[in-house]
């Protein structure tokens, strides 16, 4: 592992490993819940996820205490934060709409993000003064929470397609009993989209304000900005269609999945392939 966390202060790497450990256990809990359908296993999965979340939060706070900066300088920190946001949204949603099986999607995803985070070098040092802005913190927080919500929408979409396929094909296989109703999955996806879209909008606006403060203009037609705009329009279109002509069910599920792909591309692809002014945060 190429991690060289905090030369001073808190043992970041250990905390991150503990987080990973919890997420891994939580994934196992949800997986066994899928097979054995004991309510306890699901509760265990949720509890472990929450424990992981606490450790995760500690890691973020620790990062801030160690460097004195908000953790968003490089890909390592960005991923750490993105993973945290995903788990936060998941825990919240689980409390709100109990689609228990969704943990099966969220826990492994958090685990994977955590593994990738640990595999990515944490290049400390390069800290430009603009990282101290409140707008940056707010921008990143809302964007990432929004991304987390979109990730869940995508997960709900997957589960919807899986369940729908079972019902259409009339094969009451393994998943029929284990997955919730189509209506619930659709509803869940919709709520995730609404929440994600709200946060995305706030995130974009705060990003613009931040850009105004740093570069003196709201919008600079940067590749990253353009793709974020595309993403915003895409999600806006999905929601609009749903509210007007009732894009629901299968179509909505597929769109949530495609939307998340666009999001992933905006998040990683643009930086790796096209460059742009967010490059320094994510390379």
């Amino acid at each position, binding site marked *: 592992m190429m991690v060289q966390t905090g030369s001073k202060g808190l043992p970041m790497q250990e905390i991150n490993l503990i987080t990973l450990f919890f997420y891994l256990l939580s994934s196992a809990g949800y997986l066994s819940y899928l097979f054995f359908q004991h309510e306890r296993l699901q509760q265990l999965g949720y509890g472990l996820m929450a424990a992981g979340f606490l450790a995760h939060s500690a890691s973020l706070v620790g990062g801030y205490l160690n460097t004195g900066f908000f953790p968003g300088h490089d890909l390592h920190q960005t991923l750490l934060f993105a993973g945290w946001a995903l788990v936060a949204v998941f825990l919240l949603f689980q409390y709100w709409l109990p689609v228990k099986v969704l943990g099966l999607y969220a826990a492994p995803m958090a685990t994977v993000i955590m593994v990738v985070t640990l595999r990515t070098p944490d290049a400390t040092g390069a800290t430009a003064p603009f990282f101290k802005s409140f707008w940056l913190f707010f921008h990143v927080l809302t964007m990432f929470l929004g991304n987390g919500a979109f990730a869940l929408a995508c997960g709900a979409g997957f589960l919807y397609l899986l369940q729908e396929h079972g*019902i*259409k094909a*009339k*094969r*009451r296989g393994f998943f029929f009993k284990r997955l919730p*109703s*189509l*209506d619930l999955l659709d509803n869940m996806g919709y709520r995730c989209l609404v929440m994600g879209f709200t946060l995305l909008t706030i995130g974009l606006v705060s990003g613009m304000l931040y850009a105004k403060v740093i570069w003196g203009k709201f919008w600079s037609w940067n590749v990253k900005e353009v793709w974020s705009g595309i993403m915003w329009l895409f999600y806006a279109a999905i929601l609009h269609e749903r509210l007007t*002509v009732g894009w629901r069910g299968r179509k909505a599920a597929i769109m949530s999945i495609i939307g998340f792909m666009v999001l992933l591309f905006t998040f990683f692809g643009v930086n790796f392939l096209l460059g742009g002014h967010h490059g320094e945060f994510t390379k």
Partner: protein
Amino acid sequence: MQNIYLVGLNHKTAPVAVRECLAFTGPEAIHAMARLRQLTAIQEVILFSTCNRVEILYIGREGEDALDALKAFLSEYKKVPGKLFEESLYHYSGIEAVRHVFRVAASLDSMVVGEPQILGQIKTAYRQATQEKSTGVVLNRLLHRAFWLAKRIRTETGIGGHAVSISYAAIELGRKIFGALDGKKVLLVGAGEMAELAVEHLIRNKASDIRVANRTFERAVELAGRYRGRAIRFEEIPDALAEVDIIISSTGARQYVILPGHVKAVMRTRKNRPLFFIDIAVPRDIDPVINRMTNAYVYDIDDLKEVVTENIEDREREAVKADRLVDEAVIQFRKWHESLEVVPTIKALRSQLSDIVDIELERTLKGLGYREAADREAFSRMKTALINRILHYPTLFLKREDIHGDMNIYLDAVRRMFQLDENREPDGEQEPSASSLERGVNL
């Protein structure tokens, strides 16, 4: 008993697509039975066709094979190539045929083991057969035994107790689509026990707003009244699709009642809210293509069967008990068929003569003002002797060994000549005097 045969196909051997090609409507079945009776190889015949089975039970003539003739008949009558269904046909003879009929009537062979409708359906078929006079002594007996056994199994085993489950299955599926069913709107197209049961279950699950469509509007009004719903005309079905969520269809229509175009037309108005079709009819009412459309789900009776198989395990346990009763009945029937065919006839004959003599004697003695009780016994002895002498040759004739092949004809002739089956002809549901006499012999 070797001349009792059964040929047919059911939900286990043939998919709904094949069954709907061969399904007979009520009038068709009557007509078909009348024609089958004229086949030379067939002595007695009954045909029953339900949504899950088409079966022909018949008594073949000695040394003749009616199977090919029946296949040809089905193929010709329903205008389907024999290739389509031949593979699905099963063919039983003797004891196996008897056992099969018993099991079918007792709902042990049903898609949903223990469902109550099959007995009624067979009774209806039997009533039609007796109207066409296509059944005779043996099948009458066999079917009466089947009805009696079905009742016994229903009361003595828990097989019917687990209520009926196609409709439960439908509700479970509905839950997987809609989550909760409360407030969901239901459209019932056509009628029928199974469909109505499904509606009742939906109501119990808080589905509201029931609409009923029927070819005859009065019937729709009547059903709507029962569910506190609304009757609509058959032509209004396409419009109703815009509002309802669950459609249960069970009509006798030959063509699809709901087509993809109907669904397509309303999806936009519905804002793509899902539509769940439950098609209980055979032939099917709802074009299966609709299942491929987004947010529309179509389950026909075969699909529901898959769902049902999961929750019937305990019913299967009861079925073991029921099968024991079936075996018992088969043995009894075989006994009757093998050695006692003649006996009930003679007994009935004796009892009829005895009744006649009693009545006439009473009348005569009364007219004469004769009151000597002591002489009664002498009269009674004379009655017995008289009857014995009258019946001596007929009894010998009926018991002759060398005519066993055609015995049914003579038995039938005697029964008709003396009107021994007088009371039990028209609907055959009860077992009146003549057969209760037989029962005395057998049980």
